[in-house]
């Protein structure tokens, strides 16, 4: 589930964020933990020395509201003892404190062993020795002066205000995870991961009626560096709604068109409820994929490990075993991928030292696989983990998190204009909006940013008060056409929430513009 935006860590100066801790020092700390845990009776141990950096530049209209640099640095130690998991974490990085945390992890494991039904069974994993992985970014956002970021956001705000917006809030988030993983399997893995998300929220108010409308940025959070903000001509797609972005983002241009579009939203026609053919842009569809395919194919949900919080899944093991469960139409091919360049989920190795890869989840509409980690792999008859383990901090215990789950583009040539041309009565939806789905992922409701009525193959103007409700399986079986590779784009979330205590993870979802037939659309206007 996607929660409100949280803030983590402690504040630091911008220059502190450029310091990098020597892997040799991290290896020494890790060995202290590995040895201490083993001496107390652990049969398996993994250690994560993590330094998590966040930078937020927050502005509104002509003002800088906040510039925050946070750092969270510490060590998390996970052990198996007496067949049970135990975990402890500390931000005191001296040898005694690390050894004490390792001992606490073992104590917890032993205490909990009486609550087990069967011992933890880990899929085999070879040690990789001392290896490293770095995100292939072009420009580290933390090296860009804060002033340059402030100037960009204030220019964005100015463009929106000049375009008729009453208010704009704009934010630039940058994240750097410096993660070191060591385990008793013999891996010492150093990774440097970067993410960036520029976004804004425009509001326009009609003082005479007291009504207001909003338009959020059409950017995507990505696993890229600051180059994401340097859009080239090939990164732009011109459509009936305006410019859409592929690969890189022009924030200034989007704020300008956003101010115009929020004005159009004020005057838009309120939707007539009923069945419509929906043409969904990737800037919108990523969230539907995330909720209705990403989450129900997480094996921990299928098995019941999330029953008390995020929920379980309608994609039960019997449906997978049958090899003929029609999740969607034959057009629907969905992959899990932890390697896609520029995606939020891309890493070299997951947080239990497994090298990452790509696999099919839905093939020609049929459920063929899930997303699993080491202690679940045996349930699927796999002899290796799929590399989906992640912890959002050194102080959080790692568990199964979503890989990038993406809808593959259609094989036949098909453009956005072709999709619209083929629809008699429909709605073209751009951008993500309101979202909600049940705990087994059957029933969902989504809104968007921009809704365009399609009449007899042509855009007939903007609509408002739109949300669609559907059943996941019916919805994906109503998928009839997907644009080709040239329209494939990534959307995603910085803050996918799961687990207790709650953790967030960042994940991307790719798709091309896709058509779904006869989906139920409701009108959301009310009076209070």
């Amino acid at each position, binding site marked *: 589930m996607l929660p409100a935006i949280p803030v983590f860590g402690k504040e630091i100066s911008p220059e502190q964020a450029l310091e990098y801790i020597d892997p040799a020092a991290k290896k020494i700390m890790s060995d202290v933990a590995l040895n201490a845990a083993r001496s107390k009776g652990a049969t398996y141990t993994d250690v994560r020395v993590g330094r998590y950096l966040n930078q937020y530049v927050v502005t509104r209209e002509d003002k800088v509201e906040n*510039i925050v640099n946070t750092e969270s640095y510490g060590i998390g130690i996970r052990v198996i003892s007496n067949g049970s998991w135990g975990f402890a*974490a500390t931000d005191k990085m001296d040898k005694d404190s690390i050894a004490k945390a390792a001992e606490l*992890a073992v*104590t*917890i494991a032993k205490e909990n062993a009486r609550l087990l039904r069967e011992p933890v069974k880990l899929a085999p994993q070879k040690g990789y020795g001392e290896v490293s992985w770095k995100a292939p970014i072009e420009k580290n956002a933390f090296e860009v002066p804060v002033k340059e970021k402030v100037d960009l956001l204030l220019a964005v705000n100015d463009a929106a205000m000049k375009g008729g917006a009453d208010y704009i809030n704009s934010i630039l988030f940058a994240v750097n995870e410096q993660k070191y993983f060591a385990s008793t399997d013999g891996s010492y893995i150093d990774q440097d991961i970067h993410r960036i998300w520029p976004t804004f929220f425009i509001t326009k108010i009609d003082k005479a009626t007291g009504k207001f409308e909003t338009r959020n940025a059409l950017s995507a959070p990505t696993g890229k560096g600051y180059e994401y903000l340097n859009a080239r001509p090939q990164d732009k797609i011109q459509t009936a709604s305006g410019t859409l972005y592929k690969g890189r983002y022009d924030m200034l241009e989007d704020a300008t068109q956003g101010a115009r579009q929020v004005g159009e939203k004020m005057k838009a026609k309120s939707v007539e409820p009923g069945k419509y053919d929906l043409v969904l842009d990737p800037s919108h569809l990523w969230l539907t994929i995330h909720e209705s395919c990403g989450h129900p194919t997480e094996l921990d949900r299928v*098995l019941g490990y999330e029953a008390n919080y995020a929920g379980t899944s309608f994609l039960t093991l019997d449906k997978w075993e049958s090899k003929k469960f029609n999740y969607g139409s034959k057009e629907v091919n969905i992959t899990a991928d932890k390697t896609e360049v520029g995606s939020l989920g891309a890493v070299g190795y997951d947080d239990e030292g497994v090298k990452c890869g790509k696999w099919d989840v839905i093939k020609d509409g049929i459920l063929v696989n899930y997303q699993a980690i080491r202690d679940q792999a045996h349930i699927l008859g796999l002899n290796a983990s799929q590399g989906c383990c992640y912890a959002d901090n050194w102080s959080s215990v790692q568990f199964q998190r979503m890989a990038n789950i993406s809808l593959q583009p259609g094989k036949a040539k098909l453009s956005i204009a072709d999709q619209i041309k083929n629809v008699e009565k429909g709605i073209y939806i751009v951008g993500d909006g309101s979202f909600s789905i049940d*705990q087994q992922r059957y029933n969902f409701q989504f809104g968007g940013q921009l809704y365009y009525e399609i009449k007899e193959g042509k855009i007939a103007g903007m609509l408002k008060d739109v949300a669609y409700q559907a059943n996941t399986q019916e919805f994906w079986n109503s998928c009839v056409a997907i644009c080709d590779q040239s329209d494939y784009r990534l959307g995603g979330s910085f803050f996918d929430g799961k687990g207790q205590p709650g953790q967030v993870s960042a994940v991307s979802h790719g798709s091309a513009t896709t058509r779904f037939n006869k989906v139920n659309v*409701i009108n959301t*206007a009310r009076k*209070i």
Partner: protein
Amino acid sequence: MPILTKAEAKALLTKVLSYSKAEQCEVNLNCSDSGNIRYARNAVSTSGGISANSLVVSSAFGKKLGTATINEFDDASLEKIVRRAEELAQLAPENPEFMPFLGPQEYGADSPTFSPATAAVTPKDRADAVQASLKEAIDSKLNAAGFLSNSIGCSAMMNSKGLFAYNTSTDVAFNITVRTDDGKGSGYATRGYNDFSKLNAKADTAIATKKAMSSITAKAIEPGKYTVILEPTAVAVMLENLFFSMDARQADEGRSFMSKTGGKTKLGEQLVDERVNIYSDPWNPELPTATWSGDGRPQEKVNWIEKGVVKNLYSSRYWAQKTGIKAIPFPGGAIMKGGTKTLEELIKGTEKGILVTRLWYIRTVDPQTLLLTGLTRDGTFYIENGEIKFPVKNFRFNESPIIMLNNLDEIGIAERTVSAESEANYLLPPLRIRDFTFTSLSDAV
């Protein structure tokens, strides 16, 4: 690090301030020790113990503010962090909305937020509680998944204007889902306490067990407008979206459900049924919260909605000064005044209706009307002639808490409850509401 006493915190913060050369300096200290245990499929899954502390130094020159943080408390580190905050302040852009730090404040009596019983909890205590919960579910041949956490924390702040504040707190959270093996029944219970000795994991598991067993064979009934009884945890997830939206600036700027035409707001107007009274009170013995906010403002008893009329909105100090209102901070907890009837009595007084025990995945659809969507979960029942007749399939709803509180039928006895969405604790009654809008059915159990 052990929790610092008031005198120790005062000495530490005084030392930090002694290094300051800024025009103004403010220091915030937070320390916490926590532990948790999670279980599912009738066995423990993950579990942990976490210790983390931080000291935040904010230095200001004019309207320029710099902030830096550290978790090492030796003299050299403390002086270094003060220098760093000052360097950052000199480099920062001027913030026209910067407000000078507050001088000394009166916080009234300490609130009973700290419980020694919780401070003494060990990994064994947590495992014992979970064992009792598991036994209850396993004895009923059902499947349990739950979470238990406890924490102890201290917070303190001091500034160069003479303000000093200190608090210690303990928290306990327990929630449990019990499901039938065939996946046709599911029940839930959630509790929040300051005092671990109040926790009865076995009894709470029994509640979830009963709901799981009685929710199998759910029938599908048509979506539409129904009289509903919302249990307190379902009330929490609806009303907290109202609490989160009572910001004065948003209302004044015309972008809130509180806004009216011409830049006016609904402050002082009848917004909901006159039986609705919502307030916050840091000293409430059932829901004690800190007597000061993070920026040093006192948390006082505040009436937010009195007899259905909006009495106060919370606000930043900057906005309050600009608009000439009292700068009331966002409260630590919210309370809705209860009635005298139990949940059972509310059910008895219902001719036809639906009992909603939990609502889930609540999101705003339209901030203008506070229209929310979400679903029922873990036990939804049809009531006829004052009795629960049968379980019903889950619904999606689209409803505004404002419309809901205008369609108020009856208020039950308030109790401490927890939002399964935000995990915040509240003191709320069960409510009977007319014409609650369900828009579709869900197959989820």
